[in-house]
């Protein structure tokens, strides 16, 4: 029995190294959940009421590693408590006619799925079966899921929740560099930088141990944070740490164009680098010409002098210890997210940052395997090794690896938002598999997604808890948690890491690899499907060989020796800690500068001019007048993603049990909103009821909601499913809402709900 395992945290892409130990008193490990656990009738309520577990099965300790240097945040420290959580699903659960989930055997579950898939295919065609994956899946599972969808289910309809995270930055990276690796350099390289510009990323809350790598820049006074809120990360810029730029939401692109303007006009550009290693400079220079600092000030609310100062510090930093530009979801999760990330890359190229040995551009991947998960075929338009599904050579390569005729590999499918919009529609998806994703909470326009889920003929959800999405499922399949499985993940630096098993899984839970292998058998699928992670990884190596994300030189033995395996790592070669030193990944070796400009925004959907009747009715709700404000969303330190896991950790839940709408005291005062008062945040898509939290950290015209909470507190009921035309990224960070004090009736209903739970 394993007493100790070196592994990595189950949550974010920083993948902090940790060691799991079984305390001697608990050896041998008990089998959690070996007794059937009855399905909770009301999952969110059950989550809220979850008592503290009897005691952790495993002790977690931080492990020294270049990324986290032994540090862990609260989420990491408490991660083991979920392994013995009483709400764990440990048997397949079938929803009966009365709406209650009851246990069924694995044989029965697999038979039901097989029948549903076959019937759907026969009646509506193979594309009526869909798969929704996740950035939390190991590389092995993500790879095999893409293969399973395309060959065993025969569908093109596969996409994943990374579409909501990394797609804009990925598209921008591909366009500029010819390759997308979140950080094309080791994280440690940030330590020596003189200037770091962070846009739309709140690492102090989302990945706290990361903050260590900002210390050098802070000491040099060179940390520059762009965020409409004075976030915990932005607060690091005070006391001489650097600058905080607080633009109006939705104006990041304009701000970046202003920075590029200053770089060009003040002669700060690296002309040698631009002429030898990039193309497109002249058109770019013309395109930013119209964005002089005073004009940008009028559009963004950022003073012209701060814009100049930022540009100068970046240029200065590049000549000293190095300068980095890092983007996060705050600037990427927009309908112009690809262009915004492109503008950040253009700025970095003007300064010659990418390609240097001590400067660079990077995007901070969020989900645990958000990097690996976007490389090996979960995306609608992609085959393993970051290959394009429309590329004949890529298709031929995969057909050979899979030993199937190329014609068997479907073409491109639908990106996530479109896939979810198609649920239950004519010609849409009728039977859906969901893996490692809680789309009922995490998707934009969540009310519409929930309605879509309910209109399906058959919904299968793989999870270890009854998440809000699993609660909608016809069939819930219990799967393994991180400490119960082997595999690999690729962290935010593009470094492949080993996840190791420390614990026997509950008797009834199964690996998703096992589930796919059994189903492939029952569906008489072509090619092979293994339930052994290492076997799958060996196949992934072959599949990725020669692709952009080439893993062919990596194996479990190398990883177990602790070698730093950054991709591309071709067979017989070595890893690549830093990309672009000699060339970019386009055919001519040059980086491409693509001119971008803010598009005129359509009139905000929340003040519909066509549907004015709705407008009026919403404004006519009694109570002190509702105000139109801008909603932005983000994370809290204590929670991860939809909160399906962290809301079940008693320590984290006790600390942040509910969503609170952050609002500026001046705005609050004008509507009669007091600290802790219940407010209604609504638009034509839905309504959130929660408490207000007054804070001068936010701009007066903007409110903030965390997106970790379900039901009445679900921020994504308000976000719009409009998408970026290039990446398919939805608009998460710029939505119009009406804010007002909740009516008495609403307040008492909220209070009753929380008391009942």
């Amino acid at each position, binding site marked *: 029995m394993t007493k100790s395992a070196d592994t990595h945290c189950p949550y974010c892409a920083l993948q902090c190294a940790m060691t799991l130990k079984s305390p001697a008193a608990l050896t041998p490990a008990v089998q959690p959940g070996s007794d059937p656990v009855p399905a909770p009738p009301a999952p969110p309520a059950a989550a809220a009421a979850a008592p503290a577990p009897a005691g952790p099965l495993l002790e977690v300790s931080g492990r020294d590693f270049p990324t986290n240097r032994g*540090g*862990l*945040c609260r989420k990491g420290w408490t991660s083991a408590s979920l392994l013995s959580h009483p709400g764990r699903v440990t048997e397949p659960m079938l929803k009966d006619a009365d709406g209650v989930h009851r246990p069924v055997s694995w044989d029965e579950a697999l038979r039901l799925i097989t029948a549903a898939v076959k019937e759907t295919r026969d009646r509506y065609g193979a594309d009526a079966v869909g798969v929704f994956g996740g950035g939390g899946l190991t590389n092995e599972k993500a790879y095999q899921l893409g293969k399973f969808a395309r060959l065993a289910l025969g569908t093109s309809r596969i996409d994943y929740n990374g579409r909501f995270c990394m797609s804009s930055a990925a598209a921008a990276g591909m366009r500029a560099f010819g390759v997308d690796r979140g950080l094309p350099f080791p994280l440690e390289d940030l330590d020596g930088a003189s200037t770091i510009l962070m846009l739309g990323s709140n690492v102090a809350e989302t990945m706290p141990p990361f903050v260590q790598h900002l210390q050098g820049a802070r000491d040099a006074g060179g940390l520059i944070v762009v965020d409409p809120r004075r976030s915990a990360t932005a607060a690091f810029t*005070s006391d001489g740490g650097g600058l905080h730029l607080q633009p109006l939401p939705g104006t990041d692109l304009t701000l970046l164009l202003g920075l590029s303007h200053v770089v*060009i006009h003040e002669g700060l550009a690296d002309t040698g680098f631009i002429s030898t290693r990039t193309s497109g400079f002249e058109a770019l*220079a013309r395109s930013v*010409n*119209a964005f002089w600092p005073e004009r940008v000030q*009028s559009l963004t609310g950022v003073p012209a002098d701060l814009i100049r100062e930022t540009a100068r510090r970046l240029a200065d930093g590049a000549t000293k210890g190095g300068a980095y530009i890092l983007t996060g979801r705050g600037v990427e999760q927009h309908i112009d997210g690809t262009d915004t990330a492109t503008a950040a890359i253009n700025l970095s190229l003007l300064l010659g940052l990418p390609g240097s040995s001590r400067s660079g551009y990077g995007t901070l991947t969020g989900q645990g395997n958000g990097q690996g998960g976007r490389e090996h075929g979960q995306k609608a338009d992609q085959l393993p090794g970051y290959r394009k599904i429309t590329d004949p050579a890529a298709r031929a390569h995969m057909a050979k690896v899979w030993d199937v005729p190329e014609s068997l590999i479907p073409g491109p499918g639908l990106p996530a938002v479109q896939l979810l919009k198609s649920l239950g529609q004519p010609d849409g998806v009728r039977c859906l598999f969901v893996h490692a994703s809680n789309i009922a909470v995490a998707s934009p326009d969540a009310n519409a997604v929930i309605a879509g889920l309910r209109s399906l003929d058959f919904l299968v959800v793989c999870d270890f808890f009854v998440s809000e999405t699993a609660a909608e499922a016809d069939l819930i399949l219990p799967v393994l948690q991180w400490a119960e499985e082997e595999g690999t993940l690729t962290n935010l630096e593009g470094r492949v890491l080993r996840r190791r098993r420390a614990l026997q899984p509950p008797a009834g839970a199964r690996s998703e690899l096992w589930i796919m292998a059994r189903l492939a058998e029952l569906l008489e699928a072509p090619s092979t499907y293994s339930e052994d992670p290492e076997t799958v990884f060996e196949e992934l190596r072959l599949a990725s060989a020669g692709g952009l994300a080439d893993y062919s030189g990596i194996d479990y033995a190398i990883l177990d020796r602790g070698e730093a395996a950054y991709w591309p790592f071709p067979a017989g070669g070595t890893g690549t800690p830093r990309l672009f030193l000699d060339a970019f990944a386009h055919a001519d070796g040059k980086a491409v500068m693509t001119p971008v400009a803010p598009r005129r925004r359509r009139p905000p959907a929340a003040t519909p001019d066509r549907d004015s009747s709705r407008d009026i009715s919403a404004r006519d709700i009694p109570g002190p007048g509702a105000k139109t404000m801008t909603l932005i969303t983000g994370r809290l330190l204590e929670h991860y993603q939809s909160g399906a896991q962290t809301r079940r950790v008693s320590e984290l839940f006790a600390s942040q049990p509910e969503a609170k709408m952050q609002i500026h005291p001046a705005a609050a005062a004008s509507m009669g909103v007091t600290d802790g008062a219940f407010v209604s945040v609504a638009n034509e898509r839905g309504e959130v009821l929660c408490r207000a939290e007054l804070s001068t950290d936010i701009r007066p015209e903007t409110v903030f909601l965390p997106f970790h909470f379900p039901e009445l507190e679900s921020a994504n009921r308000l976000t719009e499913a409009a998408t970026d035309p290039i990446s398919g990224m939805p608009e998460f960070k710029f939505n119009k809402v009406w804010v007002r004090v909740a009516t008495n009736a609403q307040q008492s209903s909220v209070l009753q709900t929380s008391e009942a739970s």
Partner: protein
Amino acid sequence: MSEQVVIVGFGPVAARLIDELLPAVRSGLAHLTVIGEESDAAYNRVLVADLGVGRTTAGALALSDAAALVADGVDVRLGVRVRRVDRARQRVVLTDGTTPHYDRLVFATGSRPVIPNLTGLNPDPAHPVLPAGVTALRDLHDAAVLREAVAGGKRVVVLGGGVLGLETALAAAEEGARVTVVHNGRHPLGRNIDRSGGGVLAASLRNCGVRVAGNARSTGVEHNAPDGGFSALLLEDGSAIDGDLLVLSCGVRPRTELAEGCGLSTATGILVDHKLRAHHEPHIFAIGDCAEVRCPDPACGECRTARGPSGLVGPGWRQAEWLAEYLTLLAEGTAICPGDSNDSAPGGGAVGAAASLPELPMEKPGVIVLKARGTNLAVAGDVSADPWDEEVLSAGAVNGRARLQVAQWADPEHGRYVKMTTRAGVLEGLVAVGMPRTAAELVQLFERGAELPADRSLLLRLDGPDQPASHGAADASRTVCRCAGVSGTAVAAAVTEGCATVPEVSAATRAGTGCGGCHEDIKGIIEAHFQGAVA
């Protein structure tokens, strides 16, 4: 059959229109001819002063690439002027003798500098041939003249206290020239700013090394330089201001003579309706500095209060974007039903799409943000009223319309001044001098028509050292370690229990086990504990 679009003028506004029309050109929907009188394609005139003081390069000013446009199929004609417009035949007659046909003609002729009536200057506005040492700072050549003077540390006299004059003066002074601004009002920016703001501004200009000669009526120009060029500006009171270069910055005037010549209605600019069409002429449009939006309908409320052309580039660019969409829809309509080149026909299809395109909203009064390094200033709207002008403030406050309110902050000693003129909490005018964050906030609140916080002083404090709110380090119960969520109380308790080092506190409480940023704070708590014990 693609639609023939001819654009007269190739400045920044024309450049934006061309960029926005390119998709239609590439698809063959429209054929585009651009006629530019200068030999260069469009460049950013807003930055000509910057170029003149050496802060940017001519290459970086380019807004268009003529060769790239030609490659896209645009017919670009540089160094050519339009002699006249033949509306009957729908063609323009050029100085090179060619006569391109148009289905749609767009005037983007911009404006030209006003040449003041001074002895020693040729007052003919159509052919301003300025003597040596005098420039109006409008084009790349003018910039080169200024560049030479600034580089040589020469004496520059700027005539005019408007925004462009002040920007030029400040930039030239900062780059080493000795600069005097001569204006005829009580304070600079006389047309835009209130008296108090103007006073603070003038002081601020002097602090930046710019001499300011106010209430000065200039009468003539003296040419006694060795090369026969400019040597002094003569004033009405008999005095003279010596200098090596005179920069005329007396405003601009729309270039309308071509439009007038072909019988179009003009006032200050070429009169156009809300679809930017010349009055009673559906084939001709005007945008940018040369256009004046004022529709033929005398009952139109918007146009009753309309101002003339603003001289700012932002409204011109918005017009260009709108017109490109409109012209594209019109061209699509023509492609579908070639007989009908008007958009007046009701009904479906692209013709209907053009007709139903929402009109371009009227521009708000322009916002002036001074482009300068050492002085920060923003002005917008009407700021003439003072807080106690009861009559002015309550004028127009009838039928439930709120009265004007004025909030004001003046600190002349430190060069700071703010005025917010509001109606129902929404800005109708603003002044901010020496307060960069406040200026930036006020301007975007003005642009969005958003309501100000009831406590106006919030907007003043943005520039203060008390932002952000202090973290209250004295509060023992505050969170010391955010990563692990450990309070100061918990750390202190661990220290009381015997933890004497940061690692010991970390082991006991997990404080400091995330990012490590709180190690100093933990150390502080440990030290405080033991100091207390000793004492």
